C-alpha cells in the first residue's frame, strides 16, 4: 500500500486515542495512583502494607488466585476429553457438543448461581437425592467450591472452543508419524497432540482465568465475600470512594490479570507452530473402541446434564412459588413473570439502549482501528490496537472504581447532576470493556480481504472513501456484524462494572436487576424470570446473528477461535 498520511486518518486516530485515554488509561492510572499515594500526594507503599496486614484481604487475595486456578483446572478437565473425542474420533454428537458447549456463555454465571444452589447446594435436589439413597452428600456448593463449580461450568467453552480450533489445525501427518513410530492412546495425546494444541489451550485458559478473576456477581450471589473483586466493590461502596484498600485490591487484580495474559504468551514464545503446518489431508477420524465409547458418551451426557442444569434450574425457579428443601418446586406459577414485566420493563429497555450504544461504538471504533492498522502507515497506529485490547485485562470493578474516582468532581454542563450518576457512563464502560471483542472480529474480517480488491476499485476510479464505502465495508459486513453481536450480548450480561456505576434504579440494566432480585430469597423467583428473559433475548440474538453471518459470504471461513 502506498504510504500516504491523510489528515482524515490522523483525525480519526486522534479521536479514538482521546476516547481510550479518557475512559481507559486515565481511570486505570488514577486507580494505580491512589493506591500508591498518601492523601497529600506523596508516594507511599503504606496502603499495600496495611492491605496485607488485614487477614480478610490476605485471604481474599489467596482465595481469588485459588478460585481462578481451580476454575481453569476444572474447566480443562471438562473440555479436554470433549474436544479430543469430537475432533479425533468418529463420534455421534460432536455437533451437539459444539452447539450446546456455547450455551453457558449465553447466561452469566451469577444468574445461574442461585439455581445451582438449589440444585447442588447442601439441601439442593442432588444432595437430597443422594442423602435419601446413599446417606451422604457432596459439598459442591460449599464456600469457594460453589464459586469454582459455577465459574468452571460457565466458562469452560472458552477452553473448549479454542482447543477445538487448535486441534483442527494440527496437520494429520504430525499424529500419524508419531503412531508410525510407535505412539498411541494417552502417550500420543500427551507427547504430540496436546503440546501442539497448547497455544489454543493456553489462550482459552488465560481467558477463563481473567473472567473468573473479574466476576463479582457469582461470589456475591453465593454469599462468598472473601474474594478480591467482591472486597474491592464492598470497600468502595460501603467505606467510601477514598478508601485506599479498595484501590490496592484493584491494582492487585489488574496485576494478576496482566500476569495471566503475559504468562500465556510468555509460555508460547518462539512456538509459532502455524508456520510449519500445511493444511493437511482430511482428518482420518478413528473408531471408538467399546470401552472408549462408553466413557466418551458417559462423559458427554454427564457434562451436558450439568451444563444444562443452571438453565433448567433457573427456568424451574422462575416458574416456582416456593422451592426449598425439595427436589423440584412444590407450586408452579407465572406470577414471577408478571412481577418482572410490571416492575422491570424499564431495565429491559435500559439494557437494549446501553448495549446498543456500546456495540455500535465498538464496531465503529473496531473497524476504524482495523483499517488504520492494516491499510495505512500512520505512525504509532499499533498503540491503538494495544490500548483497545488492553481493556481485556482490566476487571470491571476496577474500571468502575476508576470512573467514579476520575470523574467524581465532574458535573454535566448546564445541570447539577454529577457525570458519574449519568447513565451514559454505563454505556461508556460497556463500550470500553467490549471493544476488544469487536476489534478482533473487525481485524479478522479485514485481514481476509485482499488489498487487490480495493486497488481494483481505485483503479476503476473510486476514491479512498468511496472504496471504503462500496467495497471494504460491504465485504467486512459479516465480521462487523459478528463483532456487534458479541459486544452487545456480552455487554447485556455485564455486572462487574455495572454494579459500581448504577446509582439510580431507574438507570439500571437487566443484569443489575437480576442481581438485586437475587439478593433476597423472596426476589429469587422474579430474578430467575428476568434471567430467563435475558437468556432468551441473548439466545435469539446469537441464533439470528449466526444465521445472518452464515448466510453472508463466510462459507469458506475456518472455524474461528475465541481469542483475545
Amino acid at each position: 500500500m502506498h504510504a500516504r498520511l491523510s489528515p482524515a486518518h490522523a483525525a480519526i486516530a486522534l479521536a479514538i486515542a482521546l476516547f481510550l485515554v479518557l475512559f481507559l488509561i486515565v481511570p486505570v492510572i488514577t486507580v494505580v495512583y491512589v493506591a500508591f499515594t498518601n492523601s497529600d500526594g506523596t508516594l507511599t507503599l503504606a496502603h499495600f502494607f496495611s492491605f496485607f496486614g488485614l487477614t480478610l484481604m490476605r485471604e481474599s487475595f489467596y482465595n481469588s488466585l485459588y478460585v481462578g486456578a481451580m476454575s481453569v483446572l476444572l474447566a480443562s478437565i471438562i473440555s479436554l476429553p470433549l474436544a479430543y473425542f469430537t475432533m479425533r474420533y468418529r463420534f455421534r454428537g460432536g455437533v451437539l457438543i459444539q452447539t450446546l458447549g456455547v450455551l453457558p456463555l449465553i447466561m452469566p454465571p451469577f444468574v445461574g448461581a442461585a439455581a445451582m444452589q438449589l440444585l447442588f447446594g447442601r439441601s439442593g435436589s442432588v444432595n437430597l437425592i443422594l442423602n435419601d439413597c446413599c446417606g451422604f452428600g457432596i459439598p459442591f456448593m460449599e464456600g469457594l467450591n460453589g464459586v469454582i463449580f459455577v465459574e468452571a461450568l460457565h466458562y469452560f467453552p472458552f477452553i473448549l472452543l479454542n482447543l477445538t480450533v487448535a486441534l483442527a489445525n494440527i496437520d494429520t501427518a504430525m499424529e500419524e508419524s508419531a503412531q508410525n513410530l510407535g505412539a498411541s492412546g494417552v502417550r500420543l495425546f500427551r507427547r504430540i497432540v496436546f503440546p501442539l494444541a497448547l497455544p489454543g489451550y493456553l489462550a482459552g485458559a488465560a481467558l477463563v482465568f481473567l473472567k473468573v478473576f473479574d466476576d463479582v456477581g457469582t461470589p456475591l450471589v453465593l454469599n462468598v465475600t472473601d474474594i478480591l473483586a467482591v472486597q474491592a466493590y464492598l470497600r468502595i461502596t460501603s467505606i467510601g470512594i477514598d478508601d485506599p484498600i479498595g484501590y490496592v485490591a484493584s491494582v492487585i487484580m489488574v496485576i494478576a490479570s496482566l500476569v495471566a495474559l503475559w504468562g500465556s504468551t510468555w509460555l508460547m514464545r518462539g512456538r509459532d507452530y502455524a508456520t510449519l503446518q500445511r493444511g493437511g489431508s482430511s482428518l482420518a477420524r478413528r473408531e471408538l473402541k467399546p470401552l472408549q465409547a462408553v466413557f466418551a458418551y458417559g462423559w458427554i451426557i454427564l457434562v451436558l446434564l450439568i451444563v444444562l442444569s443452571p438453565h433448567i434450574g433457573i427456568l424451574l425457579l422462575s416458574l416456582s412459588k416456593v422451592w426449598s428443601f425439595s427436589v423440584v418446586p412444590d407450586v408452579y406459577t407465572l406470577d414471577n413473570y408478571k412481577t418482572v414485566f410490571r416492575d422491570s420493563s424499564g431495565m429491559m429497555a435500559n439494557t437494549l439502549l446501553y448495549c446498543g450504544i456500546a456495540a455500535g461504538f465498538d464496531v465503529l471504533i473496531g473497524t476504524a482501528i482495523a483499517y488504520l492498522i492494516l491499510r495505512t502507515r500512520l505512525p504509532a497506529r499499533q498503540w491503538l490496537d494495544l490500548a483497545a485490547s488492553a481493556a481485556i485485562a482490566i476487571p470491571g470493578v476496577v474500571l468502575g472504581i476508576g470512573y467514579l474516582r476520575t470523574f467524581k468532581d465532574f458535573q454535566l454542563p448546564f445541570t447539577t447532576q454529577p457525570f458519574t450518576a449519568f447513565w451514559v457512563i454505563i454505556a461508556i464502560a460497556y463500550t470500553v470493556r467490549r471493544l476488544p471483542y469487536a476489534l478482533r472480529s473487525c481485524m479478522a474480517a479485514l485481514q481476509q480481504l485482499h488489498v487487490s480488491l480495493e486497488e481494483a476499485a481505485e483503479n476503476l476510479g473510486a476514491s479512498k472513501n468511496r472504496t471504503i464505502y462500496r467495497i471494504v465495508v460491504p465485504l467486512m459486513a459479516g465480521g462487523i456484524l459478528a463483532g456487534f453481536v458479541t459486544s452487545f450480548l456480552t455487554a447485556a450480561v455485564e455486572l462487574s462494572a455495572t454494579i459500581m456505576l448504577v446509582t439510580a434504579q431507574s438507570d439500571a440494566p437487566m443484569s443489575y436487576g437480576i442481581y438485586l432480585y437475587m439478593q433476597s430469597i423472596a426476589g429469587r423467583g422474579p430474578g430467575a424470570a428476568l434471567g430467563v428473559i435475558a437468556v432468551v433475548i441473548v439466545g435469539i440474538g446469537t441464533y439470528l446473528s449466526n444465521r445472518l453471518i452464515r448466510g453472508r459470504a463466510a462459507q469458506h471461513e475456518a472455524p474461528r477461535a475465541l481469542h483475545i
Partner: protein
Amino acid sequence: MTAQRKVRLEVRNVSLAFGATPVLRNVNLDIKPGEFFALLGPSGCGKSTLLRLIAGFNQAQSGAVCIDGADITRIPPWERDIGMVFQNYALWPHMTVAQNVAFGLQERKLPRADIQRKTQSALELVGLQDYGQRRPSQLSGGQQQRVAVARTIAIEPKLLLLDEPLSNLDAQLRVHMRTELLALQRKLGVTTIFVTHDQEEALSISDRVAVLDGGVIQQVGTPMELFDRPANRFIASFVGTINLLSGTAHTTADGTTFESPLLGRLALPRTSAVSGSAEIAFRPHTLTLASPDRAGSADKVWMQGSVAHREFLGEFIRYRIDVQGIDIVADQPHYGGSIEFLPGALVKIGIQPGQIRLLAA
C-alpha cells in the same frame, strides 16, 4: 546402525474404497527382501493410499498385507514397526531435532543410553550430528528431510516407506537427495517402498517399479522393462515420451504384421501375438531424420513429413513432424556438426522395425 534382517512384503488382493469411490482395485504386490521399490503413477492413482495402507493408516475392505508371510492387516500402525517418512516431513515443532529422532526409541522404552547412542548415530548417518539441539523450523528444507529420514530409520524399521520424499525440494537438491537415499538404503539393506509421481525419479533409483493408474496396478517391472516393453498404452505414454500409431495387426504362423495408412504393411518381430485393431509404439530417440533427397537405408521403414515445431533441449533437439496430419516426435542428438532441420523443412523419418512395440488397443 547395523544392517538388518531383510523382509519380504506381500500385498494380496487388496481393494479399498472411500465411500462409493473405489481407490484400490485388487492390488497384488510381492516386494523382495532388500528391494528399493517404487510406486509410480499420476496424482489420484491410489499410490499414497496404498502406502498408507501398508503403514496401517488405511484399512482395506478386502485383502491382506503380509510381512514374511505373516498377516499384519489387523495390527495397528503403532505396533507395525514399519517406518514412514511423510511427504511434508511432519517434524514436531515443539521438539528439537534430537527429540524428534529419539521419539520412536522412547516409545519403545529403550534404556536412556541406547536412545542417546542410536539418536546420535541416526543423525550421523544423515550428516546432521551437529544439529540435534536445533528446532525443525531452523533447518532448510533438505535438512528437514534428513531429520525425517533419521527419525524413521532410528527405530530400525522392518520396512521403510517414503511418501513423495523429494517433492518438497528444489530440482537440484532432489537429484542429489535421491542418490543419497539410495546409498542409505543400500547401506541399511532395509526393504524400501517409495511413492512418486516423477517417472525419472522412479526409473533412476529403484530396483523395480509398480505403475498404478485408476487404483489398478498396470505393470510391475525393472525400470528398463517398463521403458522397453510397456504392457499397455498407459505405461507407454506415462514412462518416457512415445509415438503411438493405430492400425490393424495380423498374427499368423509366419509372424506378425501391422497395417496402417501411414506405414503400409509392416513385418514386426515376434514379441506379442496380437490380432485386430492395435497400436504401435516407438520412442522419439530411436528415429532417424534425413533430407528427403537422400536415399534411405533399406533396414528402416521411411515416412515423409514436414517439421512443424522444434525445441532445443541441450543434448538433443526435439522435432514435432507433421506426417499426413499426424504428429510424430523425433529426438536428434545435438553435437558439433550435427544436421539441423528448420520448421517447414521436408524430412524423411526412418524407423527400425526392431524398436517398434505392438500394443493391443
